[in-house]
């Protein structure tokens, strides 16, 4: 599955990407996970199955949801604590739960 992450500059979400990839490997899941800045989301959302926002850009949720709904892609905000502690396993499970 393809998981797209987004924050203001795509910097801090890229930290989380590494952790999520590691969690996916441990679970034996093939997943493409990548992070972009908020203004690049439109270019990438087409390839994603799920879009997750960093909590610091949660004010963009309404706008991003509109983009997601148009393509049938679930969009949600990552839990602040999972985000801060870079808990790749939890965020991966969260993303997979959204997809179902």
């Amino acid at each position, binding site marked *: 599955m393809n998981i797209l992450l987004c*924050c*203001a*500059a795509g*910097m*801090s979400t890229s*930290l989380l990407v590494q952790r999520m990839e590691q969690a996916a490997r441990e679970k034996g899941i093939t997943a493409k996970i990548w992070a972009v800045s*908020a*203004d690049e989301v*439109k270019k990438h959302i087409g390839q994603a199955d799920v879009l997750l926002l*960093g*909590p*610091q*850009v*949660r*004010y*963009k949720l*309404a*706008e991003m949801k509109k983009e997601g709904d148009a393509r049938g892609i679930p969009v949600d905000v990552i839990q*602040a*604590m999972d*985000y*801060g*502690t*870079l808990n790749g396993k939890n965020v991966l499970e969260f993303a997979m739960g959204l997809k179902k």
Partner: protein
Amino acid sequence: MGGFITFLENRVMPVAGRIAEQKHLQAIRDGIILTLPLLIIGSLFLIIGFLPIPGYNEFMSSTFGENWLTKLLYPVNATFDIMALIVSFGVAYRLAEKYKVDPLSAGAISVAAFLLATPYKTMFMPEGASAAVEVGGVIPVALMGSQGLFVAMLLAIISTEIYRKIIQKNIVITMPPGVPPAVSRSFVALIPAFVVLLVVWLLRILLENTSFESIHNIVSDLLAVPLNALGGSLIGAIIAVLLVHMLWAVGLHGAAIVGGVLGPIWLSLMDQNRAAFQANPNGELPNVITQQFFDLWIYAGGSGATLALVVLMLMRAKSQQMKNIGRLSIAPGLFNINEPVTFGMPIVMNPLLIIPFILAPVVLVIISYFAMATGLVAKPSGVAVPWTTPLIISGYLATGGKISGMVLQAFNFIVSLIIYYPFFRMWDKKKLAEEQTDSATQNSDHSLTM
């Protein structure tokens, strides 16, 4: 303090959200981002041109010839000096994208509108002459750079608004059936482009008959000069920093939201310094407050100057949780990324840690402002050092190679360390107590099952 957080959540956050989502401000911010890679590359050439090594100038002249500096700075002229031109295209492009109309046409029309507002003349001082003469038939480079920034942004918005309104009302030239679709598409932009240029043309003719003489002058007098004065003042900087950190206190990206509004001001202040620095690297620079002032002297480790806090966690933490956050945060923190601290420690929604998180940057703004305004420390030279550049290196580069820039960063780091220390101790103690009770209950559970 709990009431303060509720106030931020209920009052500040919705307003900030609306501002951050405002189409035009978003387009301005995203359009300006287009210039940043160019400015960083231009800065690289600036830094090489003005390396503060004794005998450097003589060495370069003897190796590459007398005109080495002029030649080296060609890329600066094609990056910094066309900032407004790029912004004119970028803002229109991003705004058109949001309205789902053709962004490429909107960008092209916006550039034409911007140039239509610009008189094709410049002042030129011939060698040996006593007064400058006006030369026609040239695009004035000065107005293509930061001096033209506000005109470029305004016209990009006006022209794209006209463009999309006409397209959305479907007032276009319709071609008879049988004409290839590609041909009819090329006519679609015709009417809106005509209206845009007509409006700007009339505006220019009108203003040429007033004392303002040009669109550039009226925007500069009524908008750019007052905004720059406000954004470049100490009080303006304190208010900006307060807003940024109050937004972060509720977990919103304050720097992105506030920077979206004030970014153009800090960018043009930065470029004023750059022009002065390029003319004379050892001369007096006009502004203290620029984009780099915040990025490099205030936000060490990320918003809230949290690098000091991370170092405290690494060296002084007793609780396992703070030790872990410290280890997790130090590598990104060196590059001024601090989400593991703000969300992991957490600072967000944490009444205790919000106090130093807001206090430290405000104190640093005041210290840094006076250090630079009094001449004790070199001002930012207008070199666009990326905000991810680590401490000390960034202070050296951003002042055009002045040791004082590094010293102030080190001093600020110690100040933030002192401000964070008592709050860090309290929080660490609380976490440690929680961990001890947790393990105590686990032990008693264990004994029960035995």
